[in-house]
């Protein structure tokens, strides 16, 4: 499968996730064990009405989706994946009005477990809004 076709399949895959659609997530790039997914600023996702800052939970949803995509894109070929645990560190508030971009890397995969790291940025590319570390299941189907 060439890269263009792969991206198309992956976009359809994410488009079929109702919650990813609800947050208007967009797959920006996908490589071997790496994924970039972004979502627009949205008033419905505000967690603090005084500041207009997006709720941490919405950032979690973006990071979780991005980590899952990174696992699925790994060369070791999982058929499906689910989150075992996910830790998110919130470094700073995301700037209201700006798109949030998550990048995830599946840096190690065993027969049953995938280890993933991710960061989330807004327009300020230097300091991340949040970072995440997660462990995911690797479903390989029946032997």
């Amino acid at each position, binding site marked *: 499968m060439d890269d263009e076709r792969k991206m198309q399949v992956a976009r359809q895959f994410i488009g079929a996730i109702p919650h990813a659609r609800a947050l208007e997530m967009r797959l920006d790039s996908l490589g071997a064990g790496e994924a970039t997914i972004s979502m627009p600023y949205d008033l419905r996702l505000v967690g603090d009405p005084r500041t207009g800052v*997006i709720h941490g939970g919405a950032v979690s949803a973006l990071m979780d989706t991005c980590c899952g995509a990174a696992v699925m894109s790994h060369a070791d070929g999982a058929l499906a994946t689910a989150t075992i645990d996910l830790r998110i560190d919130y470094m700073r508030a995301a700037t209201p009005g700006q798109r949030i971009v998550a990048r995830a890397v599946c840096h190690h995969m065993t027969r049953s477990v995938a280890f993933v790291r991710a960061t989330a940025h807004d327009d300020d590319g230097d300091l991340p809004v949040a970072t995440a570390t997660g462990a995911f299941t690797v479903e390989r189907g029946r032997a």
Partner: protein
Amino acid sequence: MSPSRPPPEPVQVVKQRRDSALRALVAGVPYIQFLGIVFERRGDELTAVLPHDEKLIGNPALPAIHGGVTAAFLETTAIIELSWSLMWEEMEAGRIDATTLDPLHLPKLPKTIDFTVDYLRSGLPRDAYARARVNRSGRRYASVHVEAWQDNRARLFAQATGHFLMPARDG
């Protein structure tokens, strides 16, 4: 003669004060409305309810609730519980007037420092419930544990622990 003590407040006054404070706290957060989370109250105990909705699904094949929705549900429950516990004393002592509270005049919300979610089983396409416990509430930091279940209270589908930065207090 025994010292006279003030008569107890009428139950409706107590309920109205607590319910309107809780309503103001929750209604001010658009993301809580987006996910459809509601909070039920028994005395000071809160239970968060996440009614099932198609847009919460993350795996349409199973189907299962999105892991990010589960994380968001738990984090929201933790923040509201922590804010509620901070408000409680002030509210009961009459130092904040619950009847005039609106989202812009509520005490400031705590900020999440980190949040770790433990996924125990997949979230089924039905209502979910969560309760949080404030394990430590200091002047600057707090640690909160939260548990979520669906059909059986004893069979959790997720739990989480988070640390929070407390809002600056006057004085």
